[in-house]
């Protein structure tokens, strides 16, 4: 008798596709569908969502087989925790704090993503990046960023 095992990476991938298919499919239904002759904004997305649902289902189905798949492996939790917020942080602060402090803090946040980075070095690195980026982007390329924003004015 064969052991039925499930390749969880594939199954999860399939589920994600199904989820996206449902998300977009339901929203397409809220749009005007139209006819094949004059397609409305919802027609093509609805078709695509349907295809995505079917594909997701097939992937889940094919994930159930008689040999186990390899696992997901190590996750970069610390990386996720510090790398992803970096651009968000930049977005939240670039207008208020201004370009210079925003880029300094963003680099600092990103630097924390590695176990290897020591705090002092992170500060030095962030400082160097800030000086370089300000010279190149703000003075050199003349991008219209405010160097110091309204939050810093007293």
């Amino acid at each position, binding site marked *: 008798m064969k052991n039925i095992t499930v390749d969880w*990476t*594939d199954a*999860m*991938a399939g589920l*994600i*596709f199904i989820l*996206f298919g449902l998300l*977009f499919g339901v*929203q397409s239904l809220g749009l*005007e569908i139209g006819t*094949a*002759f*004059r*397609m409305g*904004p*919802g*027609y*093509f*997305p609805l078709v*695509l*969502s349907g*295809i*995505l649902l079917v*594909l*997701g289902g*097939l*992937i889940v189905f*094919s994930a159930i087989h008689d040999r186990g798949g390899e696992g*997901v*492996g190590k996750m*970069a939790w*610390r*990386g*996720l925790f510090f*790398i*992803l*917020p*970096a*651009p*968000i942080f*930049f*977005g939240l602060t*670039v*207008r208020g704090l201004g370009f210079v402090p925003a*880029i300094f803090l*963003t*680099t600092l946040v*990103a630097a924390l*993503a*590695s176990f*290897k*980075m020591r705090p002092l*070095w992170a500060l030095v*690195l*962030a400082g160097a*990046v800030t000086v370089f*980026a300000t010279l190149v*982007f703000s003075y050199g*390329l003349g*991008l219209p960023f405010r160097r110091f924003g309204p939050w810093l004015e007293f």
Partner: protein
Amino acid sequence: MDLLSNLSLGFATAASPENLLFCLIGVILGTLIGVLPGIGATATIAMLLPITFQLEPVSSLIMLAGIYYGAQYGGSTTAILINMPGESSSAVTAIDGYQMARRGKAGTALAVAALGSFFAGTVATLLVALFAPPLTAIALKFGAAEYFSLMLLGLVSAIALAHGSILKALAMVVLGLILGLVGTDIYTGAPRFTFGITEYADGLSFVALAVGIFGIAEILRNLEGDQDRTVLGTSLGGLLPSRADLKRMVAPMLRGTAVGSILGILPGGGAVLAAFASYTIEKRLSDHPEEFGQGAIAGVAGPESANNAGAQTSFIPLLTLGIPANPVMALMVGAMIIQGIVPGPNVASEQPELFWGIIASMWIGNLMLVVLNLPLIGLWVKLLKVPYHVLFPVIMAFCSIGVYSVNSNVFDLYAVAFFGLMGYVLLKLRCEPAPLLLGFVLGPMLEENLRRAMILGRGDPTIFVARPISLTLLLLTLAVLVVMFLPSIRKKREEVFVEAD
């Protein structure tokens, strides 16, 4: 001669001091990022893309092309020196290149790679100049139905080159297509899938998507291990290949160029396939097949020529039809659209300077690579020793600035974080991001042509099979799908990619 006058126009454009400078900057930046291990050409270009937007259209595309060649060359450098190919197309180079490096012939291996690439680049550039105009003439006859069928063929072929499961690659394409539709509907003006955020009414930022799913996802993957790399400690050895070495590389170089040029034109992009095909051919033809895997020069010269020729000729479908053959070309389409150029057959007739300027700059870029990189190899090796935990915060900072500078839209930055997470999760679930990017770029075009064709056909879908060119393209699409699902081909395909990893 038309060709000569066109080429001279191209060279006049590409050789203006300004464009030469941008080409040079592109090549250097591309190599610089490309030598960072684990970051392939696509990620490199995605991250450097925003920098080019401040320039004139011609200069910006020339610089992007330069970044592309530079990144590819950088990928080969890491493949040879630390056995870590920046991308799959230089995976083959790593096999024999690294062995050569271990025997103290790293310099020779790098020189052979550079010379092979340059030769292949020269031939392929000529091919592009020869074949682009007639193909453009055909493409001008294309209607909505033909475009739709052609894009379908391109998308399906792209799947053939993705790693792993075909089903997952198909799903990634479809997901990309849907994501491409986010924004305002062109016909009715109705907002679609914007979740009420008006900042997304113009669609999701292409740069944000590319930086997120390629750049950030790659950084996260590199952070998993978080360990130091071992860079080859031994000396590089002499750079110049000996006369005997040169003799041994000529034939593989010629064959590699031929294979690469042909495979590169195919939609779906053949650089990876070309490198593998060339390696297999060389191994089969060699008098000393046992040398392969032990540091055979032919094993470096052939595949390197092939992948560079393929990289070059993959511009043909882009320049003539506006259809990207691989993710890098998809990035070029994105760049052109942001610059206000609609890629397609009209580019050649309406903007000849741009069209021929890009072609000429390909050759100039390749020349710069040889001239620059041979003396600069020492510098690249030093760069390899910079620890990763110092590099990636810098990359993150520049990505943030870059993405923001395109539209000054902070929501693009939030999209970067979202796509970074999505790209990483999908990567962990063994879904290749490349098909998603192609789908994203082609999504709006595909829908527009579908809708137009259906209106022209008065709602009758037989319009796609009634027109001969469209029918041929659809049959080809079907053939590709059938072939991919054939059990024997499927097995072979898996083997190829297992070798690649």
